[in-house]
């Protein structure tokens, strides 16, 4: 008796699909519902930022970094400004350094809210966890708005500091939010962590072994979920992170659920950091006067930060002119995405979507 088999067929997941988090396409070859091959097709959101940046001055390039990872504009700004400061040898006032830490951590909470909310959405929950997390993200965006006027593409950090000092009404708002946040995170955890359906969907799905994670140079919650304690904030402290007390959460199994709970705990640690930074916040100027057309000396610099998605690096080369000679971004979403194929081959479509959601990509950052 011959075995009956259907030939494998190709399904395009994306570029227009509710769960690709942007315009990103996976060409999945399926046998029934099981994925036997997955090819990632990128470039639908390519805006040629790295080339455009070579025609613009160092300051004019800051808004580009907002539009890379548009869910974490503050950390994009921060990474780029650190690189330029390293290139030009600029000292940043202490108050500005603290403000940078506060806003980067607020942004981390907002970004993780979005990541975890959409992750549970990908598991099939009908928007409810996302809406709960949006409630707190909204308040963080309100804080951004009262400080710099923008909510999403903030353009807040400047070379040599930040653009504005925080207004007086910022302190009560941020203090009340930080007092409330641990309860809110406990609420999210209560709603999701012990849900058997979520566990069934995410436990042991999309397992990333630690050695594969290191070899593929995955960073951020993806790497920490696989049980490797690595965080640029501790390994190579920038700003004033070396003065802060915080822990790094790591997972046990490297599956989607571990990445989810690592993000949950990181929000809690971010609250800790913000509370400490607010206590230590010194008075003083928030930026240093610099020429509009900044001309760093010829040379190269690489600065890296821990963005919500992973290690965000900026590599700049200056030829002594007012524009960068080369502007290169090591974007965490792009590098983290490379492990997707290893994760999803052998899983079903439903699991592939969950794995993709757990990596937390941002297509703006992948394609730049």
């Amino acid at each position: 008796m011959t075995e009956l088999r259907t030939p494998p067929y190709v399904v395009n997941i994306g570029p227009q699909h509710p769960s690709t988090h942007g315009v990103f396409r996976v060409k999945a070859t399926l046998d029934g519902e099981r994925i036997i091959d997955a090819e990632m097709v990128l470039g639908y959101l390519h805006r040629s930022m790295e080339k455009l940046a070579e025609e613009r001055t160092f300051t004019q390039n800051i808004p580009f970094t907002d539009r890379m990872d548009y869910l974490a504009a503050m950390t994009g700004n921060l990474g780029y400004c650190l690189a330029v400061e390293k290139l030009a040898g600029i000292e940043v006032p202490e108050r500005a350094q603290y403000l940078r830490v506060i806003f980067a951590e607020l942004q981390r909470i907002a970004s993780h809210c979005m990541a975890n909310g959409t992750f549970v959405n990908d598991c099939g929950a009908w928007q409810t966890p996302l809406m709960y997390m949006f409630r707190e993200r909204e308040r963080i965006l309100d804080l951004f708005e009262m400080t710099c006027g923008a909510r999403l593409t903030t353009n807040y950090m400047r070379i040599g500091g930040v653009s504005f000092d925080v207004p007086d009404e910022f302190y009560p708002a941020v203090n009340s939010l930080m007092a409330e946040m641990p309860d809110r995170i406990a609420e999210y955890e209560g709603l999701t962590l012990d849900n058997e359906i979520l566990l069934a969907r995410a436990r042991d799905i999309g397992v990333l072994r630690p050695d594969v994670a290191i070899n593929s140079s995955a960073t951020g919650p993806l790497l920490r979920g696989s049980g490797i304690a690595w965080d640029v904030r501790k390994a190579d402290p920038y700003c004033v992170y070396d003065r802060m007390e915080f822990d790094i959460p790591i997972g046990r199994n490297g599956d989607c659920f571990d990445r989810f709970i690592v993000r949950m705990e990181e929000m809690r640690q971010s609250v800790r950091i913000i509370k400490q930074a607010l206590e230590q916040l010194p008075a003083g100027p928030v930026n240093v006067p610099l020429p509009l057309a900044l001309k760093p000396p010829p040379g190269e610099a690489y600065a890296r930060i821990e963005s919500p998605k992973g290690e965000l690096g900026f590599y700049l080369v200056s030829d002594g002119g007012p524009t960068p000679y080369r502007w290169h971004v090591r974007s965490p979403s792009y590098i983290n995405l490379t492990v997707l194929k290893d994760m999803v081959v052998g899983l079903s479509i439903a699991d592939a979507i969950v794995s993709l959601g757990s990596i937390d990509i941002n297509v703006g950052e992948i394609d730049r």
Partner: protein
Amino acid sequence: MAPLLNWYDFDPFHDLYHWLDKHVESWVVYLVAAVIGSAGILTFVGLGALVNVWLERRLIGRIQVRRGPNRVGPFGLVQPVADAIKLIQKEVLQPDAADSRLFNLPPIIVFIPAMLTFAVFAWAPDLVLANLDAGVLYLLAISSITALAIFIAGWSSNNKYALLGAMRVIAMMISYEVPMVMCFLAPVLLAGTMSVAGLVQWQQHHFLLAAFVPMSVLIYGLSATAELNRTPADIAEAESEIVAGYHTEYSGMKFGLFYAVELINSLAVSGIMASLFFGGWWLFGVEKVIPAWIIFILKIYFFYFGLIWLRGTLPRFRIDQLMGLAWKMLLPLALINVAVIATEVLIWQEADLGGWVLAPYAVVNIALTAALVVVFFRIVTARFYRLPTRVILVRDIQVPALPAPASSALRPPTPLPQ
């Protein structure tokens, strides 16, 4: 009166029928009763679809800490009308590669079983459109037609997502029919009738069947979400996975019909739940104060609220997990349930005991259900709790020695090619 009229039990119009019976042929009486009954049910179903759109969006909004529709009319009450107008106005697109004749059929086919289900419900003591002797069997037979329509939709769309959705529906519906039939057997055995009105009457004389067959209630509740394609079993139209499943290619009012049928089916399932297990129009004598059909509709909406709550709360199962639930968990439980109830009924009849024996039966069955569900649940979920659901916290990390950062100017850039 014609023997056919026994099927139609419309007491409010009793005098009218008698008057008609004296003056015209008996089939005219039959026809009048059928038209009045159908019109009543269609009105309820049509209005119900509109109300459900509003209720669903509004309640899910509340569950999701937002307001829901509140712009069109007071409390957004006119929103469903606006939605319907929008859907009717939209252009109905059809893919070139779709099988045109088959493609247009499913929105119509899917409507028929949704409407037919309501025919056998007992709305009040004497208000049944079709008091079939095999009412429960009829309900099961009717609910299978939906699968056919959905598969035609998925196949004729010529779209891979639609086909995947349709395949999932067929697999799921076939799987869930089995525990569903088994769980309907228990109340039928106990009450000794397959008529829906008869089951309600039995409950009026004894007590709510839910107390005697709690396992059936649980199994039917789970199977119903699967049959309805609602969370946690909405794998057929899993938005995050296969876009919209079998109705991916449908637009405009064709999609609107699928959407309306989904809401009407939710009402039908709530109606079955209310009639078979929770007393239908009967509510401990309250039906003498409030009209019985209002009690029935309130019960329907009570269970519909439960469905909305589930949708707003739970994530989705994966298809193999859903199949596993049906075959490995629900079917054994349903078989145990039928065996237990059959034994009890046998003892009741053979020993010629009175109605008092139902009280210990209820206690035994509830205890047994609770124990079995806990045991099965522990077995199924054990592997999820193999690892703790909390992270490990690390204070200090191992940093391999990095090359010393010399200066910002490591090497001069290569000059631009002229």
